[in-house]
């Protein structure tokens, strides 16, 4: 019977080729949509590498005040740290977690190894106490780094693996592309996915900046870890303190949790839109397949009647139609898989192999489910066709 199916499909290759092409294309679209969804989900499941809960972000703006900004900031940090309910305060660049700014560069070199595109953050000694990054090798910045000859940096594992491979990162000295600057790695953290919940685990590097330095000033962002359960009362208190210390600088507060929600919403909007478009596309394909099968069966009524006359049961007829659809789908999906497998082979998006594998399986599953659903009703109708009536059709 299987050979018979193949013979039938082969002899009807022109009609089946179109059907196969439709299945191949829809498989491909499903694959790309699946790839996007699976990749986002995969990223979502990766460790964030830091703890955003109970962290508040203060953006202070000196405005027209030009008198000893750095001294004022230093005093402000001390005041905030001394406030009951505050666990730690860090002074950093504006690319805080879930913010809309980022800085990246691929200027770092180690021997001949060129760095991948790396997210760069300014950090002080306190940051690890505020954001809780997990140090897996070496240490976070501290007073010992005051005497460093090269700018101390902490990198994430992704960066360390890309630059140093299996070798230990701690103590390694990086230069820039013109070999004019040097950085020395003092520690490695597990990960730092701070852009949004779906951000990939990209290479990251923290450069030590402290308020005690005389040079390099320009950051006006403070992150404050507060005791769990702190609310509006503490917030008011901190804002009043900022006003008092800075004598009128502007200050606004957000919690990282709020920022995270905002960012998530913005990330989800295109995903949902794409999902909807994908959904409509699938619906379209389903209606198309359904129509084709329906037409196919009405075209083949006489054949159905004949097969019944020669001894096919109604169920046998429906199985034949399902079987034909299964073979055509399998051929279409095989073609689609051959195309899809080029993505990881050619390294188009540079996603992890298991993401591709999962997306392929998902798309395969979906397309088989889709064709099964579309083929079920027409096949059942075919089974119910009255043989004597069908034989009158010519």
């Amino acid at each position, binding site marked *: *019977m299987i*050979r*018979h199916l193949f*013979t*039938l499909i082969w*002899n*009807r290759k022109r009609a089946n080729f179109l059907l196969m092409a439709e299945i191949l294309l829809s498989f491909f679209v499903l694959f790309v949509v699946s790839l996007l969804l699976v990749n986002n989900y995969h990223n979502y499941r990766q460790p964030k590498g830091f703890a955003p809960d109970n962290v508040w972000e203060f953006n202070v703006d000196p405005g027209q005040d030009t008198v000893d900004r750095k001294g004022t900031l230093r005093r402000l940090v001390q005041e905030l740290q001394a406030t009951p309910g505050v666990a730690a305060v860090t002074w950093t660049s504006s690319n805080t977690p879930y913010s809309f700014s980022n800085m990246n560069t691929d200027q770092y070199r180690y021997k001949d190894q060129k760095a991948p595109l790396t997210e760069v953050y300014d950090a002080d000694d306190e940051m690890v106490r505020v954001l809780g990054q997990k140090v897996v090798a070496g240490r976070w910045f501290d007073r010992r780094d005051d005497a460093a000859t090269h700018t101390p940096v902490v990198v994430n594992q992704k960066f360390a693996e890309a630059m140093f491979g299996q070798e230990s990162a701690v103590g390694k000295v990086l230069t820039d592309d013109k070999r004019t600057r040097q950085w020395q790695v003092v520690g490695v953290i597990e990960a730092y996915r701070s852009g949004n919940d779906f951000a990939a685990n990209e290479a990251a590097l923290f450069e030590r900046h402290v308020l005690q330095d005389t040079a390099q000033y320009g950051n006006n962002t403070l992150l404050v870890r507060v005791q769990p359960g702190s609310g509006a009362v503490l917030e008011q208190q901190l804002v009043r303190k900022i006003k008092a210390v800075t004598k009128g600088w502007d200050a606004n507060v957000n919690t990282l949790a709020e920022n995270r929600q905002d960012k998530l919403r913005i990330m989800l909007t295109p995903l949902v839109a794409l999902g909807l478009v994908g959904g409509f596309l699938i619906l379209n394909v389903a209606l198309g397949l359904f129509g084709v099968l329906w037409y196919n069966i009405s075209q083949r009524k*006489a*054949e159905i*009647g*004949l*097969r*019944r*006359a*020669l*001894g*096919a*049961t*109604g169920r*046998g007829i429906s199985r034949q139609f399902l079987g034909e659809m299964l073979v055509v789908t399998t051929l279409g999906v095989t073609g689609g898989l051959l195309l899809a497998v080029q993505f990881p082979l050619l390294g188009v998006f540079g996603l992890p192999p298991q993401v591709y594998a999962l997306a392929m399986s998902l798309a395969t599953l979906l397309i088989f489910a889709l064709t099964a659903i579309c083929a079920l009703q027409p096949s059942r109708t075919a089974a119910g066709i*009255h*043989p*004597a009536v069908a*034989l009158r059709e*010519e």
Partner: protein
Amino acid sequence: MENILAQSAVRPQATAATLAATAQPVIQLRDIEKVYQTKTIETVALNRVNLTIHKGEFVSIMGPSGCGKSTLLSIIGLLDEPTSGVIELDGRPVQSYSDKELAALRNQKIGFVFQSYHLINDLSVLDNVELPLLYRSGVGGRERRERAYAALDKVGLSARTNHFPSQLSGGQRQRVAIARALAGNPEIILADEPTGNLDSVMGEEIMDLLLGLNRQEGTTIVMVTHDEQQAHKTQRLIRFFDGSQVQ
């Protein structure tokens, strides 16, 4: 017991046959009615038909167009159900068979030759002839092939096995259809104007083929025809008019 009663009820026709009264009835129709109901009109295609066909008989059916001959064949061939009345196959009422059993009966007992050939255009001649064996369990691919070749040989088409129906003449197509019926080696052949589309020489050949099958293999044949000469070569002629038997 019921069997004997049934036989006596249709005795007038049975005695009209040239067949020995001792032969077993294979097909019995009792008070068969077939009414086609459409939105506008009701067509009585068969009106209280009683008919007994015995094992090994060659029966021809004649009648004007639209008198219900094809309808009768599809009811005998278990393709259609009568509106009322009883059909018995080998003494067992057909109503008691399941869909699966009916399919098996059609496959093993009955071979059809249709008025309009009904070949599958997307299958080669050989694949078409193999079809009934495809639905029979226990017949392997090789045996199918051999039996299909043998059947095509009988109808003189062994040189055309790889052709497609669209590449054949009407007469050749009808011979393929006959070969398909032969391949299954059925006890009963139901033929609806098997020579209707053929010239007289070809018609003669097909007729001889069927006669030979009837004599040598004892195949029971029911044939619809418009050809008086052919009809007279068979053992019994039944005439139909407007859904009723007239002779």
